[in-house]
């Protein structure tokens, strides 16, 4: 199966005074049809920018490098008209704050039908019927009444469902959800997560779910990417990632959660990751996590560690990749990797023997 989205070595820079700075350094990811992919990171990691790049909703003056292929189309070559067709049509977005993306003065019905009529050329009655269907699809009770109501008459969770309905209106193949449940109560969040799962299965819809909460991705996302300082640190099928994380940052993220029911009573001090988070532009040379990493060694600093497979993957899709010189696999596998350039090989041999000594 081919992925519907492929991002290769994507970087995004923004202008500032007389120079430019990176918000994303080098991100490569893939999304297959009908799957939910998680993108996890803290604030400043660049995870939101990744999503916005897919809809060309980047701030003015942003420059994108690398390749972004969606269904065979190179998104970097699209002009404004091409983007307008794509946005909403093939790729849609759901963002964190539904209050901001819903027009306060128009009824829900008006907002949905407007969208359907302008972008899809529906006639009035067909649009209304479709709007009703969409509200049913997002499990809003009494859609007829909902169509006549205004956004402020709904709770936060319902408003988010309405945002999702608008996103689905034109039948996209990919939805970018940027922290869609962060502002919601936990019981409401659970409902929205179920909705995403159902929609993904029913409509063969791919979802990129961007969040800082690994717990959410644990149940919802089939595969997860961990982003830090504008780079991917590790990626794997979610269960594999949470069960056998390799990258020290991934391990730290998993351990930094407050104790849950399963791990017994709390009243211990939370274990923070020492140091302050780093962004793409403030990252030092080499591995961006090196300054805060408990396992750091000499070889971590000069060059950025490449993403390498942890083991022979069952399929291209289910690879477990990690960007770490310390926790990367043993040399025997390393030599068979395509494209692991010459300069790395010699240092890798010594590094891995050191790693073996540690373990």
């Amino acid at each position, binding site marked *: 199966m081919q992925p519907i989205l492929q991002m290769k070595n994507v970087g995004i820079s923004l202008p500032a005074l007389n120079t430019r700075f990176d918000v994303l350094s080098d991100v490569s990811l893939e999304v297959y049809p009908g799957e939910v992919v998680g993108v996890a990171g803290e604030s400043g990691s660049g995870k939101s920018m990744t999503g916005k790049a897919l809809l060309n909703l980047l701030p003015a003056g942003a420059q994108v490098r690398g390749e972004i292929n969606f269904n065979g189309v190179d998104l970097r070559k699209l002009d404004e008209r091409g983007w307008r067709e794509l946005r909403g049509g093939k790729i849609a977005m759901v963002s964190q704050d539904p209050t901001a993306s819903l027009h306060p003065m128009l009824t829900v019905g008006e907002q949905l039908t407007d969208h359907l009529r302008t972008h899809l050329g529906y006639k009035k009655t067909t649009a209304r019927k479709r709007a009703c269907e969409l509200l049913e699809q997002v499990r809003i009770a009494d859609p007829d009444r909902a169509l006549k109501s205004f956004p402020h008459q709904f709770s936060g969770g319902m408003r988010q469902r309405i945002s999702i309905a608008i996103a689905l209106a034109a039948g996209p193949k990919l939805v970018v959800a940027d922290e869609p449940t962060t502002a919601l109560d936990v019981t409401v969040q659970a409902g929205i997560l179920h909705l995403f799962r159902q929609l993904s299965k029913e409509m063969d819809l791919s979802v990129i779910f961007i969040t800082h*909460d690994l717990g959410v991705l644990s149940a919802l996302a089939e595969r997860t990417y961990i982003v830090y300082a504008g780079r991917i640190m590790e990626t794997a099928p979610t269960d594999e990632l949470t069960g056998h994380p390799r990258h020290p940052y991934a391990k730290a993220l998993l351990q930094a959660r407050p104790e*849950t029911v399963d791990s017994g009573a709390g009243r211990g001090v939370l274990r923070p990751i020492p140091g302050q988070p780093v962004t793409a532009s403030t990252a030092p040379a080499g591995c961006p996590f090196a300054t805060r990493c408990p396992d750091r060694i000499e070889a971590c600093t000069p060059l950025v560690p490449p993403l390498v497979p942890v083991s022979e993957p069952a399929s291209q899709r289910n690879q477990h990749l990690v960007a770490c010189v310390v926790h990367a696999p043993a040399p025997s596998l390393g030599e068979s990797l395509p494209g692991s350039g010459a300069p790395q090989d010699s240092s890798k041999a010594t590094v891995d023997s050191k790693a073996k000594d540690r373990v």
Partner: protein
Amino acid sequence: MTLLEISDVVVEYRGANKKKVAAVNGVSLSVEPGQIVGLVGESGCGKSSLARVASGLIKPSAGTVKLKGHTVSPLGWRRRDDAQLGLQMVFQNPYSSLNPRRRIGDQLMDGVPASMPSRRRRDHALEQLERVGMHPEAATRFPHQFSGGQLQRIAIARALVTDPSVIIADEPVTALDASGQVQVVNTLLNLVKELNVGMLFISHDLALVHHIADVTAVMYLGKIVETAKTEALWQRPGHPYTSALMDAIPRVQQNAKLPKPLKGEIPDPANVPKGCPFRSRCPHAFEKCVEAPPLMPHGQGKAACWLIQGAGIPVRAG
């Protein structure tokens, strides 16, 4: 002796059509020295209104709040009574709880007890900054020079300047990022241990409250539906809402199932149906629920659910 005693507090306000709406509908809580009481509830449950009454910012429509046995009088046109300075609050938004135009040190000095001799005043304020892990040099700076987590710790230092016995923390980490949350939670935990203050920690995050509170109270639609020692609450919840909250928490697990949602919506507080307020959404509702259950003994705590009289809530699988 009980530091803070909240008894049958009701907070009413006028709703959209002039109808009286109760944000807090008869809540009783107490806080002992060295104890952290966690109050958990989702949006609309009334916990913020309760925080304001508990700290003496506003007057309850009914019920009393007592600090060390003396009734707390709300903020009015006079200076706050010295006796009440022992009740302090940490607010949710660190960016608006400090005056942007005054130096940190000056703002802290406002709270130094009048009885302290003038040469000790500055030192006392600086000591509190150190207590929360901030460099005393912060006193010369302005709020905009700090991050959210740092500002919140400064706000805590300010509360400490009065030598408080009770601190009300109203969602102190909700507005912070992950590292800020850790900073502040650890600071609060250390303080309670060191100074033996009592704390009412209000949050929507049940997992966080589980982590730091000795006693947990769960609030829904203006009422406490359950209260128990934290660990007991987690082992055997007495109220279906508590159980639902726990089921809804996303957890990192192998083969994780999606967290369980709660059906329905929180009812409009102006229009709460008769009987148990949770009845419309409760998976275990039965005939008796048309009569509102009072808080009844459950283990060593209390829960407001008729199921306790029988076999309790059906046990959750896993």
